């Protein structure tokens, strides 16, 4: 099992009912899913819960997974759906009040840079909270995770054009929201 690092091979073995293979898939994807979930929610605890939920849902529905498809895309889809449910349950006002966590900023930063960085992080969180859950998901998957339009569309259940337009709308909103930060930079 140690040498079995190929994701496709692991997926097939996991599908055959080998829990150890699924455990290895978990190890391979948990960091990536955490990044996605964190950028979707802005909260460490929520992101960790979403990763747990993703693997639990995936494990329960393993029989539905098509072995010819990509395990990564499938897990992203499950995680995105879980995050969308989570964001929809969170009221807009609540979203805007998400506190900035201490671990956003590097411990080696100077007080001035720390303050500036803290402000930037806060502005980013606020700007992302201004997006709809689907816009946020589409933007996150494209900008941070570098997924293709086809993969994002598959995860969100959108066509290629709708996916692109969702990303465009998201970026337009982010530009407006972050414009004050850009003044003086250019």
């Amino acid at each position, binding site marked *: 099992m140690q040498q079995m690092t190929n994701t496709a091979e692991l997926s097939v073995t996991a599908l055959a009912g080998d*829990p150890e293979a699924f455990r290895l898939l978990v190890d391979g994807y948990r960091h990536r899913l*955490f990044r996605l979930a964190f950028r979707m929610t802005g909260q460490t605890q929520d992101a960790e819960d979403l990763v*747990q939920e993703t693997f639990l849902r995936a*494990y329960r529905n393993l029989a539905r997974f098509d072995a010819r498809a990509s395990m990564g895309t499938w897990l992203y889809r499950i995680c995105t759906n879980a995050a969308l449910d989570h964001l929809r349950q969170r009221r807009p006002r609540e979203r805007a009040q998400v506190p900035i966590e201490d671990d956003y900023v590097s411990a080696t930063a100077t007080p001035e840079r720390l303050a500036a960085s803290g402000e930037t992080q806060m502005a*980013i969180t606020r700007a992302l909270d201004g997006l709809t859950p689907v816009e946020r998901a589409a933007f996150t998957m494209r900008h941070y995770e570098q997924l293709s339009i086809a993969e994002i569309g598959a995860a969100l259940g959108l066509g290629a054009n709708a996916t692109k337009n969702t990303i465009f709308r998201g970026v337009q909103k982010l*530009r407006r929201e972050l414009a004050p930060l850009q003044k003086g*930079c250019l």
Partner: protein
Amino acid sequence: MKHADEKALIAHAMGLDDGDERICDCADCQRELAQIQATLATLSSWEVPEISQRPILLPEPKARGVRRPLWAGVWAGAIAAALIAAFALGRFSRPVAPLAKPAATANADPSRVLLVVVADHLDRTQALLVELEHPLAAPGARTVDLSLQQSGARELLASNRLYQQGADRSGDRKIAQLLAGLEPILLQIAQSPDRVTAAEWTKLEDRIAESGILFQVRVADENLQATLRKSLLNQEQHNQEQHKAL
């Protein structure tokens, strides 16, 4: 060359255009492109914290070699005993009018049996969750003993799945949803180490508190008990009416 609109500039900055499309090189278009790129660079500076070492919990595999869980025997026995008792009550109690439905059949109604066992399950779950607030800790010890709660959670976890399926089949969505929500909590307790540090225990306790599951279990349990009491009362009234008719 035609000026680029905002969409085209965003597509270019995000690598969503065909790649060989050229963007107008006038000062206005280039300035706007630079602004979009700066916005995206700012967004890229958002740091993601490290994921904790919290293990990912998964249900125990149902694969071969898994020992038969304790609950299976206990509950199968309990349900069988309830059915036998119900049958015996009907067999030896006073005969009723031939066309009337015997009490034994009513008592053995599978949905009623499910209600009884689920109510008991919720009672035991409540007890477990409350017990977690008072784990065994020797004075001055650095760790707390969760082994009792852990084994209790394992038994409950197995029966939880069984009852969830039963509730699903009988169309009781509320109970099925509650049991589905209970599963990850039971799983976390079942898979926690025998002994945990005070900090780990607090984290577990916090998660349970945040989920609000104890409150939901209490409410559902009370509702179930009320339904059962009402059903019992109706049954008694029905029996009395039958006796009067005789």
